[in-house]
């Protein structure tokens, strides 16, 4: 009888692990690119950005067994991503940042002799947006990046532990700053 109980427990444990791996796989497939972009908002240096992304993935894997669906999956993932991002930023705050940025890369490929429409191609416009978002103040940046990922104000409030009104204030400020930065940089607001 005890052997049967043990076998059932082992089977249950194996099924749980498989289920966990399946869930992790699906989460990463569905939200991996968004998590990578969240990491990109916190880190300029491509190598460190990849490390941060992996750190987030690891944290998701570690936290997944405790996730019982109290919040939406997106809220769960973004909370981890932003917490890891903050820790990462604090860890590397005193170290010099790599200046190699996607904006610089985009500027290198932009043809200064071409017409403004041609010069400001899709790639450069995206690079300007990412560059501008990364330079926003942290509170504004967090609200904006999650909005850009399609999170609702309620979800953003859950991730950041603030009220929806506060999210709206931060978002409004973020949009104004982003618009100003993009206009000053010569991009379309």
């Amino acid at each position, binding site marked *: 009888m005890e052997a049967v109980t043990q076998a059932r427990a082992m089977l249950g444990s194996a099924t749980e692990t498989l289920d966990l791996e399946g869930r*992790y*796989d699906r989460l990463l497939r569905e939200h991996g690119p968004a998590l990578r972009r969240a990491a*990109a908002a916190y880190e300029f240096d491509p190598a460190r950005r990849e490390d941060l992304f992996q*750190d987030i993935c690891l944290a998701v894997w570690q936290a997944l067994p405790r996730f019982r669906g109290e919040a939406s999956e997106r809220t769960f993932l973004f909370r981890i991503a932003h917490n890891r991002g903050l820790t990462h930023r604090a860890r590397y705050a005193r170290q010099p940042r790599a200046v190699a940025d996607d904006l610089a890369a985009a500027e290198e490929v932009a043809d200064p002799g071409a017409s403004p429409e041609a010069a400001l191609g899709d790639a450069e416009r*995206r690079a300007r947006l990412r560059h501008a978002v990364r330079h926003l103040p942290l509170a504004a940046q967090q609200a904006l990046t999650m909005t850009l990922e*399609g999170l609702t104000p309620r979800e953003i409030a859950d991730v950041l532990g603030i009220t929806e009104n506060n999210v709206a204030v931060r978002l409004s400020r973020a949009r104004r700053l982003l618009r100003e930065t993009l206009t000053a940089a010569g991009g379309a607001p």
Partner: protein
Amino acid sequence: MIRDNHEEAAELSAWMEDWRSPDPGDTPVEAPHRLATAAILRQVKRRSLGLKLLTAGEVTFVTGVVIALTLFALRHPNPFDVAAMASLCLLAVGAVVFSFWNRRGLWRPVAETTTAYLALALERVRRRQRGLRAARWLLAAETAVFIPWIWHTLHPPGTWRPGLLHFALAYGYLALVVGVAAAGIWWLERWTRRELAALSELHEGDA
């Protein structure tokens, strides 16, 4: 400038589209991270405990061996026995010191990232390979001590002389022990090579 809601929604929508468009430098996120994270994290954590237990076991074993060899040398205080036991003690202590040195920096990953865990797993396997190479030399050195010591033990002072059976039993037993140890080392080396190949493959996938 007054912006109406429609204009603001269009602006946000354009930003969302630009923000979410894939970066050409991005690598796929699914398989390598799942594999590396799930398998490596579990393995590294399990082996961290194993490494601590192994180290504690080695220290206990070597302490026991040194005590036993010392007691033997005290009971048989002739120069040959003392020299042999002292040599074995030195080898045992040297082995445990080497083992500690060989495990430096292997206790935990340098960062909480998959890459760091993977690098640690790889480094542990490489160090195990080095440890196994050292184990071959240790086995050879111990055998080199035991061969003359057995010969000396089988030629005690007095008139008694051992027969061929005594030699066969004593050296046969030594050969058996050395053979089992050598087979164990060979098997571990083979397993380590396979593990190294698997981890290197994962590492390449993760890079």
